[in-house]
């Protein structure tokens, strides 16, 4: 394959159901994403390079906390209802982590509970998909991934510029303000989604199925 690895997005899918893992994997691969599936929130955190009790205990052998940079994850899509750590717990842990908080997180659930949906969006989830997830739902992922990609490129560019020329404090302040404006814009979008939950989020499951005799 001649395609460069960096042009493919890597999605981490988390679901305790083996069937749902199989389906989401196929859906994501069909949409040309690189996929890793895990069956629990704690395994997801492990994969991302974070530990649940990230206490500094020098005697416990542990994986380097920075190994997630080698296995870059561009998006996490997780089931809500899982034993142990729920999708919501996982979302919180990711958003609380300084190294992981920029990774977009999407929640999936088989149950349409408005309070659950708004809680997840408030905590920073980009999208909330009702199960069973369809290919058309995955089209909503691209903008969130493109945003991260362009931000990454912007950061890389910044680093290069710093190396070549020392920036004046004024320039640094301007860039900071721009970044904050971008954050504000995406926060407003999230609130707009919350307040007016589009019918798509509560779509009916059956399309004119004949009743059982």
């Amino acid at each position, binding site marked *: 394959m001649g395609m460069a690895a960096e042009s493919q997005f890597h999605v981490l899918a988390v679901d305790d159901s083996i*069937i749902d893992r199989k389906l989401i994997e196929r859906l994501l691969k069909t949409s040309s994403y690189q996929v890793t599936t895990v069956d629990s929130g704690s395994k997801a955190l492990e994969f991302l390079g974070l530990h649940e009790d990230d206490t500094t205990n020098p005697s416990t052998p542990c994986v380097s906390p920075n190994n997630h940079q080698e296995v870059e994850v561009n998006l996490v899509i997780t089931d809500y209802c899982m034993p142990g750590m729920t999708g919501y717990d996982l979302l919180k842990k990711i958003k609380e982590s300084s190294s992981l908080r920029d990774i977009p997180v999407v929640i999936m659930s088989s149950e349409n509970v408005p309070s659950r949906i708004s809680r997840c969006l408030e905590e920073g989830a980009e999208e909330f998909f009702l199960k069973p997830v369809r290919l058309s739902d995955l089209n909503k992922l691209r903008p969130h991934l493109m945003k991260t990609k362009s931000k990454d490129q912007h950061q890389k560019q910044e680093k290069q510029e710093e190396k070549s020329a020392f920036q004046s404090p004024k320039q640094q302040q301007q860039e900071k303000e721009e970044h904050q404006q971008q954050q504000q814009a995406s926060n407003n979008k999230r609130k707009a989604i919350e307040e007016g939950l589009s019918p798509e989020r509560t779509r009916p499951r*059956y399309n004119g199925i004949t009743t059982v005799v």
Partner: protein
Amino acid sequence: MIQMALAALKTQLKNFVQSMFDEGVLDSQFSQIQALQDSSNPNFVDEVITLFCTDAERIITELNKYLGYQSVDFSKLDTYVHQLKGSSSSIGAHRLKLACVNLRQASDDRSKEGCVRALNSITREYCLLRSKFQTLIQLERSIIALETNRQ
């Protein structure tokens, strides 16, 4: 010759799946799964069905076990039904999913009798589904065998 046999098998499969839709045994989610099968993943439907059946049997066994105890742990029951309902929904097993909803309700009502009835219904629906899935898989495999021969 193979071309004709292939066309006939495909029609048979299509009609068989349609009959499952008509009976409400399957819903449109199953079409979504079929759509994910292609030449790069020719066994996808087969694999999903097999995974589903293994998992469903595991869950039904557990449900039977927990319902067999003198004092029923309804929250355990609920956890398992939730799993089965989820899988049923994901594969498009419409009637089985409805049977799961009934068991959930009986479990919420803390009615052991109601749960036993609902579990019987789940078992019936699952057996019906599995038998039809077996036919479906046989058709899929015959088609693949012929297509492989053709190449």
